[in-house]
Protein backbone atom coordinates (compact mmCIF):
# COMPACT_ATOMS: atom_id res chain seq x y z
CA UNK A 1 0.00 0.00 0.00
CA UNK A 2 1.32 3.49 -0.84
CA UNK A 3 2.22 5.97 1.90
CA UNK A 4 -0.80 8.12 0.99
CA UNK A 5 -3.08 5.10 1.05
CA UNK A 6 -1.81 4.02 4.46
CA UNK A 7 -2.31 7.52 5.85
CA UNK A 8 -5.85 7.68 4.45
CA UNK A 9 -6.69 4.32 6.06
CA UNK A 10 -5.24 5.44 9.39
CA UNK A 11 -7.15 8.72 9.12
CA UNK A 12 -10.41 6.82 8.52
CA UNK A 13 -9.73 4.55 11.52
CA UNK A 14 -8.88 7.55 13.67
CA UNK A 15 -12.03 9.46 12.73
CA UNK A 16 -14.09 6.35 13.53
CA UNK A 17 -12.45 6.26 16.95
CA UNK A 18 -12.84 10.03 17.54
CA UNK A 19 -16.59 9.70 16.90
CA UNK A 20 -16.82 7.38 19.90
CA UNK A 21 -15.23 9.90 22.27
CA UNK A 22 -16.34 13.22 20.83
CA UNK A 23 -18.62 15.71 22.54
CA UNK A 24 -22.17 15.74 21.19
CA UNK A 25 -23.21 18.13 18.46
CA UNK A 26 -19.88 18.71 16.68
CA UNK A 27 -19.63 17.64 13.01
CA UNK A 28 -16.34 15.77 12.83
CA UNK A 29 -16.50 15.13 9.07
CA UNK A 30 -16.31 18.84 8.27
CA UNK A 31 -13.21 19.29 10.41
CA UNK A 32 -9.96 20.27 8.71
CA UNK A 33 -7.12 17.75 9.31
CA UNK A 34 -4.99 20.43 10.91
CA UNK A 35 -7.74 21.91 13.12
CA UNK A 36 -7.24 21.85 16.87
CA UNK A 37 -9.69 19.26 18.19
CA UNK A 38 -9.99 20.93 21.60
CA UNK A 39 -10.35 24.47 20.23
CA UNK A 40 -12.96 23.18 17.76
CA UNK A 41 -14.92 21.84 20.75
CA UNK A 42 -14.84 18.28 19.46
CA UNK A 43 -13.08 16.77 22.48
CA UNK A 44 -12.02 18.10 25.86
CA UNK A 45 -8.34 18.26 26.75
CA UNK A 46 -8.61 15.18 28.96
CA UNK A 47 -9.88 13.10 26.03
CA UNK A 48 -6.21 13.17 25.02
CA UNK A 49 -5.85 10.17 27.36
CA UNK A 50 -8.23 8.10 25.36
CA UNK A 51 -6.41 9.07 22.20
CA UNK A 52 -3.12 8.02 23.83
CA UNK A 53 -4.62 4.67 24.85
CA UNK A 54 -5.94 4.19 21.33
CA UNK A 55 -2.45 4.80 19.91
CA UNK A 56 -0.86 2.40 22.41
CA UNK A 57 -3.37 -0.36 21.68
CA UNK A 58 -3.68 0.09 17.93
CA UNK A 59 -0.15 1.08 16.92
CA UNK A 60 1.93 -0.06 19.89
CA UNK A 61 3.28 3.45 20.54
CA UNK A 62 5.21 3.54 23.81
CA UNK A 63 4.72 6.83 25.64
CA UNK A 64 7.01 5.85 28.53
CA UNK A 65 10.13 6.75 26.59
CA UNK A 66 8.95 9.81 24.68
CA UNK A 67 6.32 11.10 27.10
CA UNK A 68 2.86 12.32 26.12
CA UNK A 69 2.94 15.63 24.28
CA UNK A 70 -0.64 16.92 24.22
CA UNK A 71 0.33 19.32 21.43
CA UNK A 72 0.86 16.38 19.08
CA UNK A 73 -2.52 14.84 19.91
CA UNK A 74 -4.60 17.95 19.37
CA UNK A 75 -5.21 17.55 15.65
CA UNK A 76 -5.90 14.68 13.26
CA UNK A 77 -2.79 15.64 11.24
CA UNK A 78 -0.65 15.72 14.40
CA UNK A 79 -1.84 12.27 15.46
CA UNK A 80 -1.23 10.83 11.99
CA UNK A 81 2.27 12.34 11.91
CA UNK A 82 2.98 10.79 15.30
CA UNK A 83 1.81 7.38 14.10
CA UNK A 84 4.05 7.64 11.03
CA UNK A 85 7.05 8.62 13.15
CA UNK A 86 6.62 6.19 16.00
CA UNK A 87 4.89 3.18 14.45
CA UNK A 88 6.75 3.33 11.16
Amino acid at each position, binding site marked *: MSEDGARARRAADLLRFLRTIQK*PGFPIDELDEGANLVAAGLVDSLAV*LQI*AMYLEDTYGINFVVR*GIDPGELMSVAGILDLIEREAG
Partner: protein
Amino acid sequence: MTALPALREALRRMRNFHEDESLVARWAACLARLGPWISAGRRRLLLSLASLGLLVVSLAGTHTLPGENPASSPAMRTTLAIPFALALFALCYLAALRFDRLPAVVRRRPQVTLHLLFWVVLAVLWATPTAESLWRQAIAQFALVLPFVLWRCGYLLKSGQRGRAKGSAWSDHAFYLWPVWGGSETPYGKGFDYLVRSEAQSAEAFARAQLAGLKLLGLAVVWKAAVALMRYLVWGDPDSPLAGPFDGYTLGIPRVATLISGASAAPLPVAWLSVYCDLVWNTLKLAAVGHVYIGVLRLCGFAVFRNTYKPLLSESIVEFWNRYYYYFKELMVEFFFFPTFARCRVRPWLRTFLAIFAAAFAGNLYYHVIAEQPRLVAGDFAGLWGTYHPRVFYCFLLAAGIFVSMQREQKRRGQSAAARGGMARRVVRIAGVWTFYGIIHIWGVAGGASTFGQRTRFALSLVGLG
Protein backbone atom coordinates in the same frame (compact mmCIF):
# COMPACT_ATOMS: atom_id res chain seq x y z
CA MET B 1 -35.52 45.37 13.04
CA THR B 2 -37.18 46.17 16.36
CA ALA B 3 -35.32 47.92 19.16
CA LEU B 4 -34.51 44.86 21.31
CA PRO B 5 -32.92 42.64 18.62
CA ALA B 6 -31.03 45.68 17.31
CA LEU B 7 -29.70 46.40 20.79
CA ARG B 8 -28.78 42.73 21.23
CA GLU B 9 -26.93 42.76 17.90
CA ALA B 10 -25.11 45.97 18.86
CA LEU B 11 -24.04 44.40 22.17
CA ARG B 12 -22.89 41.22 20.40
CA ARG B 13 -20.81 43.31 18.00
CA MET B 14 -19.33 45.29 20.86
CA ARG B 15 -18.51 42.10 22.79
CA ASN B 16 -16.91 40.54 19.73
CA PHE B 17 -15.19 43.67 18.42
CA HIS B 18 -11.94 41.70 18.19
CA GLU B 19 -13.48 39.52 15.46
CA ASP B 20 -14.62 42.45 13.32
CA GLU B 21 -12.83 41.74 10.03
CA SER B 22 -12.56 45.40 8.98
CA LEU B 23 -11.03 46.33 12.33
CA VAL B 24 -8.62 43.37 12.11
CA ALA B 25 -7.60 44.47 8.60
CA ARG B 26 -7.00 48.08 9.67
CA TRP B 27 -5.05 47.01 12.76
CA ALA B 28 -3.00 44.55 10.69
CA ALA B 29 -2.20 47.29 8.16
CA CYS B 30 -0.86 49.49 10.98
CA LEU B 31 1.27 46.61 12.29
CA ALA B 32 2.52 45.72 8.81
CA ARG B 33 4.01 49.22 8.53
CA LEU B 34 6.27 48.39 11.46
CA GLY B 35 7.56 45.45 9.39
CA PRO B 36 10.68 43.69 10.67
CA TRP B 37 10.61 45.66 13.93
CA ILE B 38 7.81 43.45 15.13
CA SER B 39 8.82 40.11 13.61
CA ALA B 40 8.36 37.10 15.89
CA GLY B 41 12.14 36.78 16.46
CA ARG B 42 12.52 40.47 17.29
CA ARG B 43 9.59 40.35 19.68
CA ARG B 44 11.12 37.38 21.52
CA LEU B 45 14.49 39.15 21.75
CA LEU B 46 12.93 42.33 23.16
CA LEU B 47 10.81 40.34 25.60
CA SER B 48 13.88 38.36 26.70
CA LEU B 49 15.90 41.51 27.37
CA ALA B 50 12.99 42.97 29.33
CA SER B 51 12.70 39.69 31.26
CA LEU B 52 16.34 39.81 32.32
CA GLY B 53 15.88 43.39 33.53
CA LEU B 54 12.80 42.35 35.45
CA LEU B 55 14.69 39.45 37.02
CA VAL B 56 17.23 41.85 38.51
CA VAL B 57 14.52 44.17 39.81
CA SER B 58 12.53 41.28 41.27
CA LEU B 59 15.55 39.75 43.01
CA ALA B 60 16.38 43.12 44.53
CA GLY B 61 12.83 43.32 45.85
CA THR B 62 12.95 39.91 47.53
CA HIS B 63 12.61 40.25 51.27
CA THR B 64 15.19 38.99 53.70
CA LEU B 65 14.47 36.12 56.04
CA PRO B 66 13.99 36.42 59.79
CA GLY B 67 17.27 35.86 61.62
CA GLU B 68 19.45 37.12 58.81
CA ASN B 69 22.30 39.49 59.51
CA PRO B 70 20.81 42.96 59.00
CA ALA B 71 24.25 44.50 58.52
CA SER B 72 24.93 42.70 55.24
CA SER B 73 24.36 44.70 52.12
CA PRO B 74 21.11 43.89 50.26
CA ALA B 75 22.68 45.16 47.04
CA MET B 76 25.66 42.85 47.43
CA ARG B 77 23.38 39.92 48.24
CA THR B 78 21.30 40.58 45.11
CA THR B 79 24.45 40.92 43.02
CA LEU B 80 25.49 37.47 44.23
CA ALA B 81 22.04 35.91 43.75
CA ILE B 82 21.68 37.04 40.12
CA PRO B 83 24.47 34.76 38.79
CA PHE B 84 22.79 31.79 40.51
CA ALA B 85 19.52 32.49 38.70
CA LEU B 86 21.27 33.05 35.37
CA ALA B 87 23.35 29.89 35.86
CA LEU B 88 20.15 27.87 36.40
CA PHE B 89 18.63 29.29 33.21
CA ALA B 90 21.83 28.58 31.27
CA LEU B 91 22.03 25.05 32.66
CA CYS B 92 18.44 24.27 31.69
CA TYR B 93 18.85 25.88 28.28
CA LEU B 94 22.00 23.89 27.51
CA ALA B 95 20.37 20.70 28.82
CA ALA B 96 17.36 21.25 26.54
CA LEU B 97 19.57 22.10 23.58
CA ARG B 98 21.72 18.96 23.98
CA PHE B 99 19.16 16.70 25.58
CA ASP B 100 20.39 13.61 23.69
CA ARG B 101 23.85 14.01 25.21
CA LEU B 102 22.71 14.16 28.83
CA PRO B 103 23.40 11.20 31.14
CA ALA B 104 20.79 8.45 30.72
CA VAL B 105 19.41 8.93 34.23
CA VAL B 106 18.75 12.64 33.58
CA ARG B 107 17.27 11.89 30.15
CA ARG B 108 14.83 9.45 31.71
CA ARG B 109 13.85 11.73 34.60
CA PRO B 110 14.64 15.36 33.70
CA GLN B 111 11.95 16.81 35.94
CA VAL B 112 13.01 14.75 38.94
CA THR B 113 16.59 15.92 38.40
CA LEU B 114 15.49 19.55 38.28
CA HIS B 115 13.47 19.25 41.48
CA LEU B 116 16.30 17.38 43.19
CA LEU B 117 18.48 20.38 42.45
CA PHE B 118 15.94 22.58 44.24
CA TRP B 119 15.90 20.28 47.27
CA VAL B 120 19.72 20.16 47.33
CA VAL B 121 19.79 23.98 47.48
CA LEU B 122 17.33 23.84 50.39
CA ALA B 123 19.34 21.10 52.12
CA VAL B 124 22.47 23.27 51.87
CA LEU B 125 20.57 26.13 53.50
CA TRP B 126 19.19 23.95 56.28
CA ALA B 127 22.61 22.46 56.97
CA THR B 128 24.50 25.75 57.23
CA PRO B 129 24.35 28.18 60.16
CA THR B 130 22.12 31.23 59.63
CA ALA B 131 22.85 34.96 59.77
CA GLU B 132 26.56 35.03 59.07
CA SER B 133 27.66 34.34 55.51
CA LEU B 134 26.80 36.68 52.67
CA TRP B 135 27.04 33.69 50.32
CA ARG B 136 24.44 31.84 52.33
CA GLN B 137 22.16 34.83 52.14
CA ALA B 138 22.63 35.02 48.38
CA ILE B 139 21.74 31.33 48.06
CA ALA B 140 18.72 31.88 50.33
CA GLN B 141 17.61 34.76 48.14
CA PHE B 142 18.00 32.56 45.07
CA ALA B 143 16.03 29.79 46.81
CA LEU B 144 13.21 32.24 47.54
CA VAL B 145 12.68 32.88 43.83
CA LEU B 146 13.38 29.30 42.69
CA PRO B 147 9.77 28.05 42.88
CA PHE B 148 8.78 30.87 40.50
CA VAL B 149 11.14 29.56 37.80
CA LEU B 150 11.10 25.85 38.64
CA TRP B 151 8.03 24.91 36.56
CA ARG B 152 9.10 27.24 33.77
CA CYS B 153 12.50 25.51 33.64
CA GLY B 154 10.53 22.25 33.67
CA TYR B 155 8.71 23.29 30.50
CA LEU B 156 12.07 24.15 28.94
CA LEU B 157 13.37 20.65 29.74
CA LYS B 158 10.18 19.16 28.29
CA SER B 159 10.92 21.01 25.03
CA GLY B 160 14.39 19.47 25.08
CA GLN B 161 12.95 16.02 25.77
CA ARG B 162 10.60 16.38 22.79
CA GLY B 163 13.47 17.55 20.57
CA ARG B 164 11.86 20.95 20.00
CA ALA B 165 14.60 23.06 21.59
CA LYS B 166 17.25 22.02 19.07
CA GLY B 167 18.67 25.01 17.25
CA SER B 168 16.82 27.53 19.40
CA ALA B 169 18.53 30.67 20.71
CA TRP B 170 18.66 31.82 24.36
CA SER B 171 16.19 34.56 23.49
CA ASP B 172 13.67 31.90 22.44
CA HIS B 173 13.47 30.86 26.10
CA ALA B 174 14.52 33.69 28.41
CA PHE B 175 11.27 35.60 27.77
CA TYR B 176 9.07 32.99 29.47
CA LEU B 177 11.47 32.06 32.29
CA TRP B 178 10.90 35.43 33.96
CA PRO B 179 7.93 36.74 31.96
CA VAL B 180 7.14 40.42 31.62
CA TRP B 181 3.43 39.58 31.44
CA GLY B 182 3.65 38.46 35.04
CA GLY B 183 2.22 35.41 36.74
CA SER B 184 2.64 33.30 39.79
CA GLU B 185 4.53 30.03 40.27
CA THR B 186 2.11 28.80 37.59
CA PRO B 187 3.47 29.67 34.14
CA TYR B 188 0.67 31.47 32.32
CA GLY B 189 1.21 30.58 28.67
CA LYS B 190 3.13 27.44 29.69
CA GLY B 191 6.51 27.11 27.97
CA PHE B 192 8.32 27.20 24.65
CA ASP B 193 6.29 24.53 22.81
CA TYR B 194 2.89 26.04 23.48
CA LEU B 195 4.02 29.65 23.07
CA VAL B 196 5.66 28.94 19.72
CA ARG B 197 2.54 27.12 18.52
CA SER B 198 0.44 30.12 19.55
CA GLU B 199 2.79 32.82 18.25
CA ALA B 200 1.46 35.16 15.56
CA GLN B 201 3.53 34.80 12.39
CA SER B 202 1.82 37.42 10.25
CA ALA B 203 0.60 40.99 10.75
CA GLU B 204 -2.98 39.75 10.54
CA ALA B 205 -2.46 37.04 13.18
CA PHE B 206 -0.64 39.58 15.37
CA ALA B 207 -3.56 42.00 15.00
CA ARG B 208 -6.06 39.27 15.93
CA ALA B 209 -4.00 38.31 19.00
CA GLN B 210 -3.69 41.93 20.10
CA LEU B 211 -7.39 42.69 19.68
CA ALA B 212 -8.25 39.54 21.62
CA GLY B 213 -5.79 40.74 24.28
CA LEU B 214 -7.49 44.14 24.47
CA LYS B 215 -10.84 42.42 24.88
CA LEU B 216 -9.44 40.35 27.74
CA LEU B 217 -7.99 43.44 29.44
CA GLY B 218 -11.43 45.06 29.14
CA LEU B 219 -12.99 41.99 30.73
CA ALA B 220 -10.41 42.16 33.51
CA VAL B 221 -11.59 45.68 34.32
CA VAL B 222 -15.21 44.47 34.40
CA TRP B 223 -14.36 41.56 36.74
CA LYS B 224 -12.26 43.83 38.95
CA ALA B 225 -15.25 46.16 39.26
CA ALA B 226 -17.48 43.17 40.05
CA VAL B 227 -15.02 42.05 42.74
CA ALA B 228 -15.01 45.55 44.25
CA LEU B 229 -18.81 45.61 44.17
CA MET B 230 -19.04 42.20 45.80
CA ARG B 231 -16.50 43.17 48.42
CA TYR B 232 -18.83 45.83 49.67
CA LEU B 233 -22.35 44.72 48.75
CA VAL B 234 -21.94 41.06 49.75
CA TRP B 235 -19.20 41.01 52.39
CA GLY B 236 -19.83 44.50 53.73
CA ASP B 237 -16.16 45.47 53.85
CA PRO B 238 -16.16 48.82 55.72
CA ASP B 239 -12.91 49.90 54.02
CA SER B 240 -14.46 49.69 50.56
CA PRO B 241 -14.64 53.00 48.65
CA LEU B 242 -18.20 51.99 47.66
CA ALA B 243 -19.48 52.46 51.21
CA GLY B 244 -20.40 56.09 50.39
CA PRO B 245 -22.30 55.58 47.11
CA PHE B 246 -24.39 52.74 48.57
CA ASP B 247 -25.24 54.75 51.65
CA GLY B 248 -24.19 51.98 54.02
CA TYR B 249 -26.41 49.31 52.42
CA THR B 250 -24.81 45.87 52.38
CA LEU B 251 -25.93 42.23 52.61
CA GLY B 252 -23.27 41.71 55.28
CA ILE B 253 -22.77 38.01 54.54
CA PRO B 254 -19.89 36.64 56.63
CA ARG B 255 -16.85 35.16 54.86
CA VAL B 256 -16.43 31.38 54.97
CA ALA B 257 -13.07 31.77 56.76
CA THR B 258 -14.70 33.67 59.64
CA LEU B 259 -17.55 31.16 59.88
CA ILE B 260 -15.00 28.33 60.08
CA SER B 261 -12.93 30.00 62.77
CA GLY B 262 -16.05 30.98 64.73
CA ALA B 263 -15.26 34.70 64.45
CA SER B 264 -18.78 35.12 63.09
CA ALA B 265 -21.95 33.07 63.07
CA ALA B 266 -24.84 32.82 60.63
CA PRO B 267 -28.09 30.88 60.19
CA LEU B 268 -27.90 27.86 57.88
CA PRO B 269 -29.22 29.52 54.68
CA VAL B 270 -26.77 32.41 55.10
CA ALA B 271 -23.91 29.96 55.71
CA TRP B 272 -24.75 28.21 52.43
CA LEU B 273 -25.00 31.58 50.70
CA SER B 274 -21.57 32.41 52.06
CA VAL B 275 -20.14 29.17 50.62
CA TYR B 276 -21.53 29.93 47.14
CA CYS B 277 -20.56 33.62 47.30
CA ASP B 278 -17.01 32.63 48.24
CA LEU B 279 -16.83 30.43 45.16
CA VAL B 280 -18.10 33.23 42.91
CA TRP B 281 -15.76 35.76 44.55
CA ASN B 282 -12.70 33.52 44.12
CA THR B 283 -13.62 32.80 40.52
CA LEU B 284 -14.02 36.49 39.67
CA LYS B 285 -10.77 37.40 41.41
CA LEU B 286 -8.84 34.69 39.58
CA ALA B 287 -10.45 35.64 36.26
CA ALA B 288 -9.56 39.32 36.73
CA VAL B 289 -5.90 38.58 37.48
CA GLY B 290 -5.55 35.87 34.82
CA HIS B 291 -7.14 38.06 32.15
CA VAL B 292 -4.48 40.72 32.78
CA TYR B 293 -1.61 38.20 32.36
CA ILE B 294 -3.14 36.57 29.29
CA GLY B 295 -4.25 39.92 27.88
CA VAL B 296 -0.68 41.24 28.01
CA LEU B 297 0.62 37.95 26.58
CA ARG B 298 -1.79 38.30 23.67
CA LEU B 299 -0.68 41.91 23.15
CA CYS B 300 2.83 40.49 22.79
CA GLY B 301 1.54 38.37 19.90
CA PHE B 302 0.70 35.01 21.50
CA ALA B 303 -2.82 33.80 20.82
CA VAL B 304 -3.01 31.62 23.91
CA PHE B 305 -6.06 30.24 25.74
CA ARG B 306 -7.63 32.20 28.57
CA ASN B 307 -6.76 31.14 32.08
CA THR B 308 -10.37 31.26 33.23
CA TYR B 309 -13.20 30.54 30.82
CA LYS B 310 -16.77 30.55 32.19
CA PRO B 311 -16.13 27.99 34.93
CA LEU B 312 -19.37 28.88 36.72
CA LEU B 313 -21.28 27.47 33.75
CA SER B 314 -19.48 24.11 33.95
CA GLU B 315 -21.72 21.08 34.03
CA SER B 316 -19.22 18.65 35.49
CA ILE B 317 -16.46 18.70 38.09
CA VAL B 318 -13.79 17.88 35.53
CA GLU B 319 -15.04 20.65 33.22
CA PHE B 320 -14.84 23.19 36.06
CA TRP B 321 -11.28 22.06 36.85
CA ASN B 322 -10.40 22.60 33.21
CA ARG B 323 -11.96 26.05 33.00
CA TYR B 324 -11.27 27.58 36.41
CA TYR B 325 -7.47 27.81 36.41
CA TYR B 326 -6.44 26.44 33.04
CA TYR B 327 -2.66 26.91 33.32
CA PHE B 328 -2.50 25.34 36.77
CA LYS B 329 -4.53 22.39 35.49
CA GLU B 330 -2.21 22.13 32.48
CA LEU B 331 0.82 22.19 34.80
CA MET B 332 -0.62 19.35 36.88
CA VAL B 333 -1.59 17.40 33.77
CA GLU B 334 1.74 17.78 31.98
CA PHE B 335 4.03 17.23 34.97
CA PHE B 336 2.07 14.65 36.97
CA PHE B 337 -0.90 13.26 35.09
CA PHE B 338 0.65 12.32 31.73
CA PRO B 339 3.91 10.91 33.14
CA THR B 340 1.98 8.71 35.59
CA PHE B 341 -0.47 7.69 32.90
CA ALA B 342 2.32 6.80 30.47
CA ARG B 343 4.26 4.71 33.00
CA CYS B 344 1.42 2.83 34.70
CA ARG B 345 0.07 0.47 32.09
CA VAL B 346 -2.57 -1.21 34.23
CA ARG B 347 -6.35 -1.47 33.75
CA PRO B 348 -7.71 1.72 32.11
CA TRP B 349 -9.79 2.81 35.13
CA LEU B 350 -6.91 2.21 37.57
CA ARG B 351 -4.50 3.96 35.24
CA THR B 352 -6.77 7.00 35.11
CA PHE B 353 -7.27 6.84 38.89
CA LEU B 354 -3.52 6.80 39.58
CA ALA B 355 -2.86 9.61 37.09
CA ILE B 356 -5.62 11.80 38.56
CA PHE B 357 -4.37 11.29 42.11
CA ALA B 358 -0.80 12.00 40.98
CA ALA B 359 -1.98 15.33 39.54
CA ALA B 360 -4.90 16.62 41.62
CA PHE B 361 -3.72 15.17 44.94
CA ALA B 362 0.07 14.68 45.08
CA GLY B 363 1.04 17.27 42.45
CA ASN B 364 -1.39 19.85 43.80
CA LEU B 365 -0.03 19.47 47.34
CA TYR B 366 3.59 19.48 46.21
CA TYR B 367 3.05 22.63 44.15
CA HIS B 368 1.57 24.52 47.09
CA VAL B 369 4.20 23.32 49.56
CA ILE B 370 7.13 24.46 47.41
CA ALA B 371 5.36 27.76 46.75
CA GLU B 372 5.70 28.44 50.50
CA GLN B 373 9.33 29.37 49.94
CA PRO B 374 9.97 31.57 53.02
CA ARG B 375 8.89 28.73 55.33
CA LEU B 376 10.75 26.14 53.30
CA VAL B 377 13.95 28.16 53.21
CA ALA B 378 13.67 28.76 56.94
CA GLY B 379 12.98 25.04 57.52
CA ASP B 380 9.70 25.84 59.31
CA PHE B 381 8.07 22.41 58.88
CA ALA B 382 5.64 22.85 61.78
CA GLY B 383 4.34 26.06 60.19
CA LEU B 384 4.02 24.30 56.83
CA TRP B 385 2.03 21.44 58.34
CA GLY B 386 -0.15 23.90 60.27
CA THR B 387 -1.05 25.69 57.06
CA TYR B 388 -1.35 22.72 54.75
CA HIS B 389 -2.80 19.83 56.71
CA PRO B 390 -6.42 20.76 55.84
CA ARG B 391 -5.36 21.01 52.22
CA VAL B 392 -4.44 17.31 52.20
CA PHE B 393 -8.14 16.53 52.59
CA TYR B 394 -9.09 19.21 50.05
CA CYS B 395 -6.76 17.66 47.46
CA PHE B 396 -8.10 14.19 48.24
CA LEU B 397 -11.71 15.30 47.72
CA LEU B 398 -10.76 17.18 44.55
CA ALA B 399 -8.98 14.15 43.07
CA ALA B 400 -11.82 11.80 44.02
CA GLY B 401 -14.38 14.20 42.52
CA ILE B 402 -12.42 14.57 39.29
CA PHE B 403 -12.03 10.79 38.97
CA VAL B 404 -15.76 10.14 39.40
CA SER B 405 -16.63 13.03 37.09
CA MET B 406 -14.19 11.86 34.43
CA GLN B 407 -15.55 8.32 34.51
CA ARG B 408 -19.07 9.69 34.08
CA GLU B 409 -17.97 11.98 31.27
CA GLN B 410 -16.28 9.10 29.47
CA LYS B 411 -19.50 7.10 29.61
CA ARG B 412 -21.42 10.08 28.24
CA ARG B 413 -19.05 10.64 25.31
CA GLY B 414 -20.58 9.95 21.94
CA GLN B 415 -24.10 10.62 23.34
CA SER B 416 -26.35 12.99 21.43
CA ALA B 417 -26.98 16.47 22.84
CA ALA B 418 -30.65 15.55 23.42
CA ALA B 419 -29.64 12.67 25.71
CA ARG B 420 -28.05 15.21 28.10
CA GLY B 421 -31.45 16.74 28.88
CA GLY B 422 -32.88 20.24 28.74
CA MET B 423 -32.22 23.49 30.55
CA ALA B 424 -33.55 22.23 33.91
CA ARG B 425 -31.11 19.28 33.90
CA ARG B 426 -28.34 21.68 32.95
CA VAL B 427 -29.13 23.99 35.87
CA VAL B 428 -29.14 21.02 38.26
CA ARG B 429 -25.73 19.89 36.96
CA ILE B 430 -24.29 23.41 37.32
CA ALA B 431 -25.68 23.67 40.88
CA GLY B 432 -24.05 20.32 41.68
CA VAL B 433 -20.68 21.60 40.48
CA TRP B 434 -21.02 24.80 42.54
CA THR B 435 -21.93 22.79 45.60
CA PHE B 436 -19.01 20.38 45.20
CA TYR B 437 -16.40 23.12 44.79
CA GLY B 438 -18.00 25.30 47.45
CA ILE B 439 -17.86 22.46 49.96
CA ILE B 440 -14.31 21.26 49.26
CA HIS B 441 -13.12 24.85 49.37
CA ILE B 442 -13.85 24.75 53.11
CA TRP B 443 -10.63 22.71 53.50
CA GLY B 444 -8.75 24.70 50.87
CA VAL B 445 -9.59 28.24 51.91
CA ALA B 446 -6.66 30.22 53.26
CA GLY B 447 -7.95 30.76 56.76
CA GLY B 448 -4.80 31.15 58.78
CA ALA B 449 -5.19 29.26 62.00
CA SER B 450 -8.34 27.23 61.27
CA THR B 451 -7.69 23.57 61.91
CA PHE B 452 -8.94 20.52 60.06
CA GLY B 453 -11.39 19.89 62.90
CA GLN B 454 -12.87 23.41 62.73
CA ARG B 455 -13.31 23.13 58.97
CA THR B 456 -14.90 19.68 59.20
CA ARG B 457 -17.29 20.85 61.92
CA PHE B 458 -18.37 23.76 59.74
CA ALA B 459 -18.87 21.47 56.71
CA LEU B 460 -20.97 19.09 58.80
CA SER B 461 -23.01 21.98 60.18
CA LEU B 462 -24.04 22.85 56.62
CA VAL B 463 -25.92 19.57 56.36
CA GLY B 464 -27.37 19.86 59.85
CA LEU B 465 -24.79 17.69 61.61
CA GLY B 466 -22.69 18.95 64.45
